């Protein structure tokens, strides 16, 4: 493979080449980071340690992040809120979405409300939920719920509605009742798309929870980051960032794993 071939338009390189490219980019970022934060004394550094820590400081900060700052408890608190709030969003959004996608009159009725829900800025949901639910766990759960439910609903309805008419026609000429069409055709064929929505929205919900925790919380990853900033411990802040990133990746990998098992007939798993 020549260098010219590597830069050809839209030609997909082999997996090792792609991985090498990704690793090289990470190495470059680390190198720049290391260079900008290196120096024997704080004054000798291009970026002062009070502004941004060096890679080694972040690594050395990990043990105390776990022991002193209760990282594990923070992860548990954040995940718990996401599971509750997002779980509630699925419980409400998916059945309603199925109904709205199957019965077009109900879909039309829900359309403006759904649009309103999806256009509320997340930032606006913070004061709103604080106003409505006070400070505490309920507010965080409801924040996640309100931020994700309209999207879960909308995407589910769209997945159901976009099942092609020819499948419905076929089922009916094979003697399917309306209930059969809904269960065996509409839901069955839309399920992979609904699952893909759940996977994407879960990732977004996991990102959103930090927002609520930064504003007000007694525990959670967002809380740890805010405290780190206030106490002047940037190495904990940055280390938490890496933990969040790894966690998000791990959870998504779990979703992908189940996606492969659940829908072997779909090849587009990424």
């Amino acid at each position: 493979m020549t260098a010219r071939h590597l830069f050809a338009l839209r030609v997909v390189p082999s997996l090792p080449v792609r991985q090498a490219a990704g690793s090289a980019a990470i190495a470059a970022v680390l190198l720049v980071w290391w260079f900008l934060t290196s120096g024997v004394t704080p004054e000798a550094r291009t970026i002062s340690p009070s502004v941004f820590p060096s890679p080694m400081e972040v690594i050395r900060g990990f043990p105390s992040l776990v022991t002193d700052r209760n990282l594990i408890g923070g992860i548990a608190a954040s995940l718990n809120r996401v599971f509750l709030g997002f779980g509630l969003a699925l419980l409400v959004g998916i059945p309603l979405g199925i109904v709205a996608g199957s019965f077009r009159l109900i879909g039309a009725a829900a359309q403006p409300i759904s649009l309103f829900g999806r256009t509320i800025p997340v930032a606006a949901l913070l004061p709103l939920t604080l106003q409505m639910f006070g400070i505490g766990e309920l507010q965080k759960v409801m924040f996640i719920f309100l931020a994700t439910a309209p999207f879960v609903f909308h995407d589910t309805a769209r997945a159901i509605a976009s099942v092609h008419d020819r499948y419905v026609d076929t089922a009916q000429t094979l003697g399917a009742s309306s209930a059969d069409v809904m269960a065996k055709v509409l839901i069955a064929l839309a399920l992979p798309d609904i699952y893909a929505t759940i996977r994407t929205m879960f990732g977004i919900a996991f990102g959103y929870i930090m927002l609520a925790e930064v504003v007000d919380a007694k525990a959670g990853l967002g809380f740890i980051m805010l405290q780190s900033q206030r106490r002047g411990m940037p190495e904990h802040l940055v280390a938490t960032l890496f933990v969040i990133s790894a966690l998000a990746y791990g959870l998504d990998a779990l979703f992908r794993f189940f996606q492969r098992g659940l829908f072997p007939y779909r090849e587009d798993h990424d």
Partner: protein
Amino acid sequence: MTSDATPPPASATPPPVVKFDRVSKTYDGGYTAIRDVTFEVDDVPGHMEIVGILGPSGCGKSTVLRLIAGLTPQHPATSGTVEVMGKPVAMPGADRGFVFQDYTSFDNRTVQDNIAFGLECRGMGSAERTALAREWIAKVGLDVDRDAEKYPHELSGGMRQRVALARTLILKPRVILMDEPFGALDPGTRYAMQDLLVSLAREVQATVFLVTHSIEEAVYVGDRLFIFSNAPGTILRQMSTPPPDRPARVMQREASFLDIVFEVRDIVDGIEESAGAAT
């Protein structure tokens, strides 16, 4: 639909399998696809007809099939009556099977479960319907051991249409509606599918309506031909053709067969020319 209330005449002869009486269809936009289509296909025990339907594109062939099936938005007709076995068509049902040109296998079901779909809707038990489905996999020329557990995306176009045929025939429909079912297949596969259709339609004793753009296919498979005029479509000619009693590949090369094909082609070309002159 004024004649809904009139009871069928009391007589010993069974009602026609399909009867169109001055059927017209004007779509919501105001476009009239078919006008005053009238025909009868009689129920003659032991002689199940295959009706080939030819006509220029857009003349309403699919509209006619979907009216028989009871599928919206073609159903209900704007005027006239559509009757199947003496009863006005009210909605789709398994007594009128449909094979579409588009591949309509359910992606989430294996070949076996696709074929068992209708039986499942009837409430047949899992073991029983699986056994029947496997019988039909073999009947349509697929390999039970190799293909039963495959998903549609692993099948070729010809195999998918075999599945579609099996899925319909397993329900023993009285009428089979086929809308260019072999249109996307290569010629060799097409011959094989024509032979398969003829033998299986005889086996399940079904009346078949086959819409096709291939004159050879219509003349070969059909016992009878309907030739439609330009839109708004109406039946211009009905003619009988020799029954398909030899393999497609053999019969479609015979001189007597080709004579009929040329005769039909002249009629069809005549229709298309008149359309060209009109516009």
